[in-house]
């Protein structure tokens, strides 16, 4: 069912483990799905110097995690965020059609770990603008709707 490359990554997965004091952690999947991956990244000067993972899942899930960790290590944040599901499946020499969703999980878990790091960075702040009067989120140059109806204090 699986290609030789997938079986190789399944039998000898790279980068299994956790990173203590990781720069970012990304969890994806849940038992209902049948696959769960947790990715840990160490980021220094914008580069993923270390990537580790733990995976509960099938042959494809483990192989994908291993391949993603290998593809991401040493890359810049921007490069790592560009790693796509299709890239992973291609690097593995293809996955059976019903296992392609496993490749989605791997790339997504990596991205979540990176986003987790970016959100923790000092000065990251909240996404988007907020009304200075009622603190409601404000899109672009729209007048704050709640303030408009309530009137300025």
């Amino acid at each position: 069912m699986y290609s030789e490359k997938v079986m190789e990554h399944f039998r000898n997965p790279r980068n299994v483990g956790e990173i203590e004091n990781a720069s970012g952690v990304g969890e994806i999947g849940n038992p209902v799905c049948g696959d769960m991956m947790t990715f840990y990244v160490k980021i220094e000067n914008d580069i993923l110097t270390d990537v580790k993972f733990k995976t509960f899942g099938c042959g494809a899930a483990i192989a994908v995690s291993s391949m993603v960790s290998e593809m991401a290590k040493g890359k810049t944040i921007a490069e790592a965020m560009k790693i796509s599901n299709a890239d992973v499946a291609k690097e593995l020499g293809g996955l059976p059609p019903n296992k392609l969703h496993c490749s989605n999980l791997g790339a997504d878990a990596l991205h979540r770990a990176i986003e987790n790091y970016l959100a923790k960075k000092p000065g990251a702040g909240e996404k988007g603008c907020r009304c200075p009067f009622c603190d409601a989120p404000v899109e672009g140059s729209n007048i704050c709707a709640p303030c408009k109806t309530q009137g300025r204090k």
Partner: protein
Amino acid sequence: MPSVYFDHAAAARLLHEAREAMLPFLTEEFGNPASLHHFGNKPKEAIEAARVQVAALINSRPDDIVFTASASESNNLAIKGLSLPHKDKGTHIVVSAIEHVSVLEPLKSLCTLGFEYTLVPVDSEGMVDPHKLAAAIQTETVLVSVMHANYEVGTIQNIKELAAVAHRYRIPFHSDGTAAVGRIPVDVAELGVDAYTFPAMSVYGPKGAAALYLKRGTRIQSLVEGGFQEKNRRAGTEDVAAIAGFGAAAAVTEARLSEWSATMAKLAQRIFKELPQRLDHVIFTGSMSNRVPGHVSVVVEFVEGEAMLLFLDDAGIATASGSSCSSKTLKASHVLLAMGLPHAKAQSSLVLTMGKDSTDADVTHFLDKLPPIVERLRQMSPLYAKFQKGEDPYALKPGETCEDEHEHETKDE
């Protein structure tokens, strides 16, 4: 490397006697049983002789056996063929929640024809309570179907009692005997069933042949229409070789059933006793007191089924699993879920079905190989990591379900 085959539920090595019975019909006796010339004679005789042998296996009259090509076909014929003729009387069917997909899927397509169905729940061992069955029956119910033994967890139902419930309401009762035949004695007269499914594979016969027992007088609408074969119950030129193999296999299995079952039961007992001594956090599923011999179903916590299966395969051991990843439909076993197992545990299932040729050495090899495989997978598992830290590995975040981002449905299903 030893080769251990613990997946008899999927397929079994053909009995030598079955192979011998098949060969003439794959070579010089190629005639069509329906032919009026002499080329049809031996094929016709072979089918009728096989019918007698297969009937004897389950204590049925030969005329009450319909040959089909698979247990799935027999189930489709039973579910659709036994309910459609009664559509004007009622359009409700009752089945257990743990039936095989070849019983459940026909129900869904019958819904497009105006039928409805009720799934009777099972307890944590997979047993159907006769009172719950009675409660599910309505005035419009025209068919009840409960499998004799379950392929996933080995639990044997009290079919005699369940059939009696259906008969109290004058409703025909069908049972899928695929997982029971070849492991326990089956007497359809004693059980009281109106219809009963089983394939040749259950008795070490070939793929491509199966039977549907239909008690005399049971009204059935055929699925495959056209010719008059099988007394107009199933058209199509018969797979003579497969049927001949089925008959021969049935005869041998009938004679050796108690000996083979005793052997398989002892081997399974070894696993029940010794596996927990070598591996922690294993949970055996299905009834321990009421299960088919040679069947072990176990949840190995914190690791996923297909991953175990692949490593066991590397070690020369063939097994099966109820995890979603190991199923073509990517859904966790509905049997385990119906028994109340949480999803994460259903994903960790391993199913071993032994056969007549399974040995002590096979069991020893399995017991030696599984623990290091599990150890290795647990080291990789975020669930195990959580467990080791004292967190609940099975906790779902509020509202957590399978994310829509990755669609599990496959086009070719």
